[in-house]
């Protein structure tokens, strides 16, 4: 569905600060995939998301969506079929607006009109969907989103994104800024929505266990390249120790990132 062909992203080219964040990377995301992405800091995971989502344009290479070249398509256009959730829970919602207004803005993708679509029927629908979250948010439609906790905001962002049914969702460590309890809650919600709405998903995580536990494919990145790409049965059999072993074989060195190992 989404295809990256030999994509390279260089920051500050031609200067002493030149930095190749993604190097000659090719990747195929098929409909129905749930891909987990691991890799240490600076391995290019977030840059990869920014390239797929359209916030950055690649220095070289092309990106296709449904076999159509979308390499130069601006971010807002790509957002019509790609949903994103960031690590920062504040980025997915407008804090000084009410819950119902936030949900209304996220109901349709694309340019908005002068129609007044927020009515009693729509409110009832929002309430019904919010009650699915079991957080009591259905009674707080008029409250500002800024009053919610980080976990609640991230759950709301997830719900709003799922309701708009994008073809692909990009989750960039969306539980990393939450406390363990909320992180688990949001992660459970994620798998529930992915199944319920049949969402094609790519999820960056810092946690190897999570990466192994969720999804049908796993990608490991290092220095801007995909060094491991496993799926299906092979992924199911993989263990944390197996992963470390595979990394050592490929790179001839140990994983030097404690964060990856300890979490």
């Amino acid at each position, binding site marked *: 569905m989404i295809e990256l062909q030999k994509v390279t992203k260089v920051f500050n080219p031609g200067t002493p600060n030149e930095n190749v964040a993604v190097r000659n990377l090719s990747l195929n995301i098929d409909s129905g995939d749930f891909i987990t992405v691991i890799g240490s800091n600076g391995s290019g995971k977030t840059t990869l998301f920014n390239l797929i989502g359209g916030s950055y344009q690649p220095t070289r290479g092309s990106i296709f969506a449904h076999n159509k070249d979308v390499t130069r398509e*601006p*971010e*807002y*256009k790509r*957002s*019509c079929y790609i*949903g*994103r959730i*960031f690590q920062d829970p*504040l*980025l*997915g*919602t*407008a*804090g*000084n*607006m*009410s819950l119902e*207004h*936030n949900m*209304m*803005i*996220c109901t*349709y*993708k*694309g*340019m*908005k*009109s*002068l*129609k*007044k*679509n*927020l009515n009693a029927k729509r409110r009832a629908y929002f309430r019904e969907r919010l009650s699915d979250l079991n957080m009591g948010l259905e009674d707080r439609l*008029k409250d*500002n989103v800024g009053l919610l906790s980080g976990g609640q905001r991230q759950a709301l962002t997830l719900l709003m994104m799922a309701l*708009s049914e994008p073809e692909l969702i990009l989750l960039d460590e969306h539980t990393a800024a939450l406390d363990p309890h909320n992180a688990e809650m949001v992660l459970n919600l994620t798998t529930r929505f992915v199944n319920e709405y049949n969402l094609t998903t790519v999820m960056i995580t810092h946690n190897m266990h999570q990466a192994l536990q969720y999804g049908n494919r796993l990608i490991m990145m290092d220095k801007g390249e995909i060094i491991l790409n496993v799926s299906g049965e092979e992924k199911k059999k993989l263990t944390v120790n197996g992963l470390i072993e595979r990394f050592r074989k490929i790179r001839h060195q140990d994983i030097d990132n404690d964060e990856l190992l300890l979490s």
Partner: protein
Amino acid sequence: MIEGIFVEGLAYGIMVLGVFITFRILDFPDLTVDGSFPLGAAVMASAITAGWNPLIALGIAFLSGWAAGTVTALIHNKLKVPNLLAGILTMTMLWSINIRVLGNRANLPLIRQSHMLTWVRGIAEGIMSPSMAVLLFFVVVTIAIKLLIDLFFLTDLGMTLGALGNNEQMVTNQGVNVEIIKIIGVSLSNGLVAVSGAMIAQYQGFADVNLGQGIIIAGLASVMIGEFLMRSNRIWVLTTRVLLGSILYRALMYLGRYYGYYINLTPSDLKLITGLLIIVSLIITQLRKERSHFEREEAASEKKNI
């Protein structure tokens, strides 16, 4: 005289609504206002002098302000210029344009012309005093504009505009071109400012190229004064607050003008006072924020102790 305060508060209030949209809702500090306010006045005065229908003249004034806002937003969007600088650029260019609009002069009196306020005074003759009639007129006009804005912010487009100043990333993620929303917001704001300028020109009986000097600061001060009055996230409360702030600001200026000489104030000191007013507002807001932050931490630590 009390009518004067309300009339000024309401007539300038239309401008404050525009300033509120850019500064508070869009988070786009837009200095075009200092140019689009006299632009509205100049267009109105020239059109009336040329014998046009004042209602059509008002429409053109609105469109001229809209165009000025579009220019600022385009400079900001396309040339990646900071919004402050984009506004200053347009404002500076507008000074020359305003003199052109006024017919290569700095001001244009409207004393002998018939315009909206002479109509109003004419209709009210024998029923109420002219100043009451003018006040009633501005109550109706400004509240009508306020209600239209309230309605706009309840539409999908209005809501999206409301979210933009808060979270640009979120708006982009909904598949909306942020640049277009900015153009709409800044243009609408300057359209309102120009309408306000057109109204003030009729009220004062002349248009002057320097009418807009410091108008942005007056607008900002009015917005801030209003913010002390009440808190809410409902748009109709916010716009009401803006208008009340504008009236209060005019009352303060009035006091300064008429009773200031007791403490040796002259009218030329009013800008200093306006600036100080803003600084004081900022300090109070800061203190409030710190206090509420402190209280929240206090509450959190108490919870832990239990």
